[in-house]
């Protein structure tokens, strides 16, 4: 049931190819653009990880075409140790910023947040368009680093100063690092514009009857994430500005006195604080972990409820836990810096809230798993990836318990244990959320169903493959295998090479499995079975409109919301679910607990 709009439309219907598909004000097109950019970035990032894994196992292998891309970094196609670090830096930067932030948050959030709250578009469509194109420019600036003089930077995605602040500090540190800093500064501006839009839209454009607690969990996740992003990117932006000034304007924010680099005493800088960069970076960096994982957690909650055909044990507790995680994310940045030389007592102070953050995370996990009891689980590609998310989140999260303790972190920090930890809990888990969201929402976004059989093959291949890659990392870390080294030949770590070889094969296999996904996505987009409006018998507002939705979402009408978001398994109802905008009167309102 909906009301016919008597108001002017939010913006006029788009005319022409450019306005419809390129510089579009439509949040749905912008969401798809973010998704497409993320897809491009993840393919590049994955190829980079292959190159690194191949080099680790076969350090003298000549990789075709790589020599042409970087004659200095990979002469004859053989990767130098410096180029290995450059590949690592670009892999991390692309994946964290342009994949994990872009797709679950900006991509799906842009597409579905306005629809799920019953709005016609975002609050500021022009800012929204700008946010994508600014992000795109940031991406182009970053990728340009591959093609300049000495290649991309080698200081890692965290760009620790003074390595990142001095142009002479290594290959890629001249132009590449400057491009990196400019790219990330531009990216921050894009994310700030996006967060501003998300927050304002959620607060101001909700349909009649859509109270905050009636918003779906993924809407909540995007809203909380945008609050986190607003404050986190507002700190990374100043950090990048100061870094750029150190690099190009001769200031000394991060470069200390009496520094010798490549046998040269640095005289033009003095007195700076490398720790200052780490504080500013990680004040952003830790919330960034939740910017990646919370939207994925919201998406999989939304999907699991639909697959369980029942609400989660508590809608409110899930939301409060997400809020708690968001709040605590600002109090734990120092746990990335236990070995940085800061006061050891600070380490203790940061360790405590880090352990506290496991409480809401554990409650979330228990609710996801506990709600399975007595449910009528429907196995689909989306629900498999959602369950896979829980598996990755738990596996990666448990290793976090160890790393949160400074005394253990001292040993593990520089090893593959950390690499395994963050790839599982942040990287793979968030990517599983993206896959789950894709299989679940593709019918709505493209109007065609994806192939379920291929989806399930993709899931099992990815699930087994990622475990084969990242579980051995933990073992390697425990036995002392250092990270960031480009090769382990003739080294005390040589006995571990079979494990590395296994990981490399697993990485190549898992990457190959992704071709199934890409084929499925492209084939279904054009040849898939036509999707009905509500193929999953779901309850939230996005399923009340055509697939794909018209440009103004609800066809000029304003939906009215009568129910909580997840009214599944309603006794006495005409079906096993009641949509949010259905005027059907039902006796049981589960989350209110007011009715007997």
């Amino acid at each position, binding site marked *: 049931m909906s009301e016919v709009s008597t108001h002017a439309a939010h913006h006029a219907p788009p005319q022409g190819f450019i306005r419809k598909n390129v510089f579009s004000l439509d949040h749905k097109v912008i969401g798809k653009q973010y998704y497409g950019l993320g897809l491009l970035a993840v393919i590049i990032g994955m190829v980079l990880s292959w190159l690194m894994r191949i080099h680790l196992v076969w350090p003298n292998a000549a990789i075709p075409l790589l020599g042409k891309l970087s004659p200095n970094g990979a002469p004859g196609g053989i990767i130098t140790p410096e180029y290995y670090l450059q590949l690592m830096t670009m892999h991390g930067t692309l994946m964290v910023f342009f994949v994990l932030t872009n797709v679950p948050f900006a991509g799906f959030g842009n597409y579905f947040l306005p629809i799920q709250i019953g709005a016609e578009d975002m609050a*500021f469509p022009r800012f929204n368009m700008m946010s994508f194109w600014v992000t795109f420019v940031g991406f182009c600036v970053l990728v340009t680093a591959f093609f300049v003089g000495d290649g991309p930077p080698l200081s890692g995605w965290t760009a620790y100063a003074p390595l990142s602040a001095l142009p002479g500090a290594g290959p890629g540190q001249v132009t590449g690092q400057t491009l990196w800093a400019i790219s990330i500064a531009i990216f921050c501006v894009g994310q700030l514009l996006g*967060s501003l839009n998300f927050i304002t839209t959620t607060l101001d*454009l909700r349909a009649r009857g859509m109270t905050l607690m009636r918003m779906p969990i993924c809407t909540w996740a995007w809203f909380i994430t945008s609050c986190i992003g607003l404050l986190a990117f507002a700190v990374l932006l100043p950090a990048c500005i*100061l870094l750029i000034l150190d690099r190009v304007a001769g200031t000394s924010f991060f470069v200390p006195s009496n520094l010798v680099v490549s046998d040269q005493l640095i005289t033009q800088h003095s007195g*700076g604080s490398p720790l200052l960069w780490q504080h*500013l970076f990680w004040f952003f960096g830790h919330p960034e972990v939740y910017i990646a994982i919370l939207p994925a957690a919201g998406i999989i909650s939304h999907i699991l409820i639909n697959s369980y055909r029942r609400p989660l044990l508590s809608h409110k507790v899930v939301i409060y836990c997400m809020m708690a995680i968001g709040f605590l994310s600002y109090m734990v940045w120092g746990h990335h810096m236990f070995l940085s030389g800061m006061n050891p007592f600070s380490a203790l102070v940061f360790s405590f809230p880090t352990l506290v953050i496991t409480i809401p995370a554990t409650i979330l996990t228990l609710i996801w798993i506990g709600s399975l009891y007595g449910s009528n689980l429907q196995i689909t590609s989306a629900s498999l990836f959602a369950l896979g998310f829980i598996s990755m989140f738990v596996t990666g999260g448990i290793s976090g318990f160890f790393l949160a303790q400074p005394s253990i972190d001292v040993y593990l920090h520089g090893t593959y244990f950390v690499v395994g930890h963050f790839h599982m809990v942040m990287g793979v888990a968030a990517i599983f959320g993206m896959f789950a969201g894709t299989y679940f929402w593709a019918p709505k976004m493209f109007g065609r169903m994806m192939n379920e059989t291929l989806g399930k093959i993709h899931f099992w291949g990815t699930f087994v493959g990622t475990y084969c890659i990242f579980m051995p990392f933990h073992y390697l870390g425990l036995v002392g295998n250092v990270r960031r080294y480009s090769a382990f030949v003739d080294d005390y770590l040589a006995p571990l090479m079979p494990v590395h070889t296994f990981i490399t094969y697993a990485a190549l296999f898992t990457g190959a499995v992704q071709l199934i996904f890409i084929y499925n996505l492209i084939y279904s987009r054009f040849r898939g079975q036509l999707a009905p409006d509500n193929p999953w018998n779901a309850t939230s507002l996005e399923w009340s409109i055509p697939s794909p939705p018209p440009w103004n979402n609800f066809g000029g009408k304003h939906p009215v919301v009568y129910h909580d978001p997840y009214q599944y398994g309603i006794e006495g109802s005409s079906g096993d679910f009641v949509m949010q905008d259905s005027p059907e*009167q039902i006796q049981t309102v589960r989350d209110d607990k007011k009715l007997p």
Partner: protein
Amino acid sequence: MATTLQPPPIAKLPLGIRRVKQFDSEAPSTGVWVGLAAITMTFAAFTSAMVVRQGSASDWRHFPFPTILYFNTLALIASSITLQIARHRFARVDRAATATYPAVSALYGTLVLGLAFVAGQYMAWHQLRSEGVYLSSAPSSSFFYVFTVLHALHVIGGLLGILYVISKLHRGVLRRNTLDAASRYWHFMAVLWLYLLLLLWMRI
């Protein structure tokens, strides 16, 4: 359970949402608050960076402020006052373009005073340059330039906002909350400048 075609009684709708909120355009107001939160966070980050950097080495150098900064401060405060006058006049008059002259004249006052502030800041930088105080001379001067330039850029953004408001007023389509949102941003720039002036005065 019977399915009805009529909406259930209004009591079923949650309290507090009495009307359709869409397109009633509360968004500019909320958006400005959210934007100001981000700007506050940015300058807070710079402030903490300044405190840390000052304590990290003994190369902090004090230098006298250009006097013109105080005149600039007066110009910015005066521009906020004229903006308040514009708001006051706008509230009283009819929104038809013919009756907007008193409000628009006050807005032009804000525009001119805002431009004077930016020009005055440029003169302050010019004076410091002539005294040999450059961006990279000392950490204190680095932070001075970073703070003042970024604030000036935000003020220029505000001036564009004021121009937008003036053009809407001329066309007779200015809404009250658009003017309120622009004013809130502008007043915030004045308050932010007072904070920065105090901070820089104490530290430099």
